[in-house]
């Protein structure tokens, strides 16, 4: 088992709801979550339709290990054509929603069409209804979740929803579940908004089963022990992901002021030490850490803002604790916008969660706008009178709220960096690939990361490959193509399990293999897992090619290719994508145009 063997298909246009058997042949070829969701997406829509057209399909997918006793088993993925990228989107999230969807008996939820009026989907096992969202349309994510739990008198209900940003099709709107966990990237929340779907509220009582329970429990015990004994995992628990900010600063790979620089002078004010530092008034930013469903790592941060800070001194509604800084949030609001006010960063993070937006893309877009402002391309007349200089903490917080509420210049910021820079005649200032903003790793210092950014199916993303080891060893593009390809295949399969890939801090692929093999029917050996990952990667490529993307979309902005890093270990270097890309296509079994060859497709059964 592992799979529930059942999917839920909802046509929002005509209100037709049906459950149907999971295609088990596809399950054996694509495993679950990202892989299986991609297969269903590919077979159920025309990739060339506009991302915001009712013809786009929105899939919520669990994995065979979602909801099981395995550590980090709370993951689910949202798969669709991305509103930000016009490419395939696969954004996964933790929290508890994914496990609850699985408990309701479903491997996948497939949403088609567009509801004639604002609606939400209510799932109680087999009892599924499309309900009017009139009382919650226009409400924040936090208000929506509270209202649904109160209205249904069910505090244990799990909710995934969009905020006003998603309703208004902010291009990087995300889906938020459990208040501050996000399927964050590529604009999957805008797609949900385009379908007039405000929320999915789910309760499940079916539970999960696995193929070999005794062996599964033995393996789970062993793998949990490995996580518990890992120093790297302990660091994630103790410091959270923001530990990376010190490392990237010293390495010289911390993108600063829209990637004009690679080191940030204010890093000591926003790093993990700053989060735990007691201030003269006794305030400490970080309160505790937090785990997602089934997780034994607990990398999440829970923070609160100093009540004396300008953002909330007169707003007691924000005096509570909520999701704190993770590395990508800290990077995108901090160095990339030149801001070193940790309370401002935390408040802007609250805005992302409350209104449902991707902090990486918002920060990257604001950073581009700040550069345009400093160049004089846009002025106070464009920005509602707010000076958008780098380092302006007030501008960061005001614009985060304006974008979340879809007001004033926030509407322009809601376009994303690519569309914003094109609007003002400076596309070269957009730090994006396929329209998606970079994460906090500069690809002049991390060459393989640059190749991963350029070739990621969903645009610039740091979570679809792992070339940190080779990138630490040398700062050239030599020998990066094969490890990039292999790690992409590996992560494609991990993303298809229902587990979190932060477990790689303590596990090897064999640890995933043992759990998959015990939970699922079939012989799931390591070579088969890599082949499955490669199949998933190539199917995503096929989707993008049918969507109209070409080799030209496997690129990096001119700044990273032409302007040398000013400091750090890669001082004087640019990214060597021109050397790496042909080698990458070759190891992928793609032709010179980046198209999988017939031989590759045949080998993978595509």
């Amino acid at each position, binding site marked *: 088992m592992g799979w529930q063997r059942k999917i839920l298909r909802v046509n929002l246009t005509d209100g037709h709801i049906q459950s149907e058997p999971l295609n088990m042949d596809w399950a054996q070829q694509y495993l679950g979550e990202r892989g299986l969701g991609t297969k269903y997406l590919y077979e159920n829509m025309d990739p060339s339709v506009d991302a915001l057209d009712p013809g786009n399909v929105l899939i919520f997918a669990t994995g065979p290990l979602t909801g099981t006793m395995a550590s980090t088993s709370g993951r689910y993925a949202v798969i669709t054509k991305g509103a930000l990228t016009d490419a395939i989107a696969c954004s996964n999230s933790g929290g508890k929603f994914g496990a609850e969807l699985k408990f309701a008996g479903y491997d996948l939820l497939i949403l088609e069409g567009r509801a004639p009026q604002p609606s939400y989907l209510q799932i109680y096992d087999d009892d599924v209804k499309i309900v009017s969202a009139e009382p919650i349309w226009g409400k924040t994510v936090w208000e929506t979740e509270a209202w649904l739990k109160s209205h249904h008198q069910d505090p244990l209900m799990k909710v995934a929803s969009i905020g006003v940003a998603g309703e208004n099709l902010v291009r990087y709107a995300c889906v938020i579940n459990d208040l501050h966990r996000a399927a964050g990237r590529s604009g999957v929340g805008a797609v949900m908004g385009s379908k007039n779907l405000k929320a999915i509220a789910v309760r499940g009582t079916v539970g999960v089963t696995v193929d070999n329970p005794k062996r599964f429990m033995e393996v789970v015990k062993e793998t949990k022990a490995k996580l518990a004994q890992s*120093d*790297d995992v302990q660091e994630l628990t103790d410091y959270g992901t923001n*530990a990376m900010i*010190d490392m990237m600063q010293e390495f010289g790979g911390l993108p600063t002021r829209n990637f004009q620089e690679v080191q940030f002078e204010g890093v000591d004010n926003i790093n993990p030490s700053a989060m735990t530092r007691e201030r003269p008034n006794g305030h400490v930013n970080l309160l505790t850490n937090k785990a997602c469903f089934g997780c034994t790592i607990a990398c999440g941060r829970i923070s609160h803002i100093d009540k004396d800070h300008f953002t909330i001194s007169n707003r007691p509604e924000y005096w509570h604790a909520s999701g704190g800084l993770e590395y990508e949030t800290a990077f995108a609001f901090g160095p990339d916008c030149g801001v070193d006010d940790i309370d401002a960063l935390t408040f802007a993070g609250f805005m992302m969660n409350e209104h449902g937006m991707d902090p990486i893309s918002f920060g990257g877009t604001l950073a581009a706008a700040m550069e345009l402002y400093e160049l004089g391309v846009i002025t106070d007349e464009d920005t509602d009178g707010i000076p958008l200089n780098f380092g302006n903490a007030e501008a960061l917080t005001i614009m985060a709220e304006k974008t979340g509420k879809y007001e004033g210049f926030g509407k322009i910021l809601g376009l994303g960096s690519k569309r914003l820079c094109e609007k003002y005649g400076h596309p070269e200032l957009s730090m994006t690939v396929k329209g998606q903003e970079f994460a906090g790793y500069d690809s002049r210092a991390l060459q393989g990361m640059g190749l991963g950014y350029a070739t990621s199916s969903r645009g610039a993303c740091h979570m679809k490959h792992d070339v940190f080891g080779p990138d630490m060893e040398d700062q050239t593009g030599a020998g990066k193509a094969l490890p990039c390809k292999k790690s992409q295949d590996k992560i494609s399969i991990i993303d298809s399990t229902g587990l979190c890939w932060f477990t790689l801090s303590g596990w090897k692929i064999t640890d995933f293999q043992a759990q998959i093999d015990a939970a699922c029917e079939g012989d799931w050996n390591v070579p088969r897992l890599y082949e499955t990952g490669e199949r998933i990667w190539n199917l995503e490529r096929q989707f993008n090619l049918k969507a109209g993307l070409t080799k030209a979309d496997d690129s990096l902005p001119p700044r990273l290719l032409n302007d040398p890093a000013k400091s750090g270990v890669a001082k004087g270097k640019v990214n060597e994508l021109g050397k790496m890309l042909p080698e990458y296509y070759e190891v992928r079994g793609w032709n010179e145009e980046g198209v999988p060859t017939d031989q590759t497709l045949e080998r993978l059964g595509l």
Partner: protein
Amino acid sequence: MQISVKLVGTFAKYLPSPNQGNTVDLDVDSGTTAAQLVSILGLPEHQPFIVSVNDGIVPRSDRDSTVLQSTDSIKIIPPLKGG
């Protein structure tokens, strides 16, 4: 001679006392190599951390032959990971 070493981020836990922030001044023999410094600090050699001297990475294979100078800017950077 005396050298100054910065242990970045999570590697601050390997700082010997006394130290200032995440930097420590160490008295070492003239001719001390990067590999010997790693040993002196008790760093987990199985981990792929970075030894940086004057903002240049010392490859693992060169640690034995890299002699440290008192004027060097030395940093130990923990393994880079996603997040």
